């Protein structure tokens, strides 16, 4: 079974600083997808970034980037130049290729201090 672990229930960062959220996963598959979703107080689940396991290059979306370590089964999210609007719950998720069952971690609540 695939499981996703986010070991940091809460994190805080000063505005304009950088923060890294951790995620590890367990799988025996070689072809899969990893995601980071953001859930602000509005409850909307917003896709932040996606990584395909067969790509060695780490995905980047503006201020958001990942450190994908396939051998270590680690998928951390780095937020640079943190903004107040980044405050939210962040969920790491895994999906095996060809399977629509996306497995989510328990989430990390990020607080951004002005």
């Amino acid at each position, binding site marked *: 079974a695939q499981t996703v672990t986010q070991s940091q229930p809460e994190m805080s960062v000063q505005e304009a600083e950088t923060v890294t959220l951790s995620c590890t996963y367990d799988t025996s598959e070689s072809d899969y997808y990893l995601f980071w*979703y953001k859930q602000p107080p509005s*409850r*909307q*689940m917003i896709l932040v970034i996606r990584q395909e396991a067969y790509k060695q290059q780490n995905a980047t979306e503006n201020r958001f980037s990942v450190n994908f370590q396939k051998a270590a089964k680690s998928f951390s999210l780095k937020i640079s130049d943190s903004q107040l609007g980044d405050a939210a719950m962040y969920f790491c998720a895994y*999906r095996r290729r*060809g399977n*629509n*069952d*996306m497995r989510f971690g*328990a989430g990390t609540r990020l607080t951004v201090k002005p």
Partner: protein
Amino acid sequence: DARVTQTPRHKVTEMGQEVTMRCQPILGHNTVFWYRQTMMQGLELLAYFRNRAPLDDSGMPKDRFSAEMPDATLATLKIQPSEPRDSAVYFCASGWWTGRNTEAFFGQGTRLTVV
């Protein structure tokens, strides 16, 4: 601005009552998911449809839950009878299956409280 629309946003009901949650997927998407979010279990997949056909509902308690897609613009999740343990936020998500991946776009959820 295409988005997944869920109604109602909030629902409070008494135990034993029927609850119906609705979802309008993004136009053109062929895959629809229902997720449930609770503090204890996090986000769990309940069921999903492709081209309106149910593909997997193994995550759903079948004795009281049912999911349907009467047409391509409407997905419903029904609980009958509802119980306090069903209290959760229910998310609908839609996406386009490419043969490799489905990018899921979430609605804002329905917060259900069963008293």
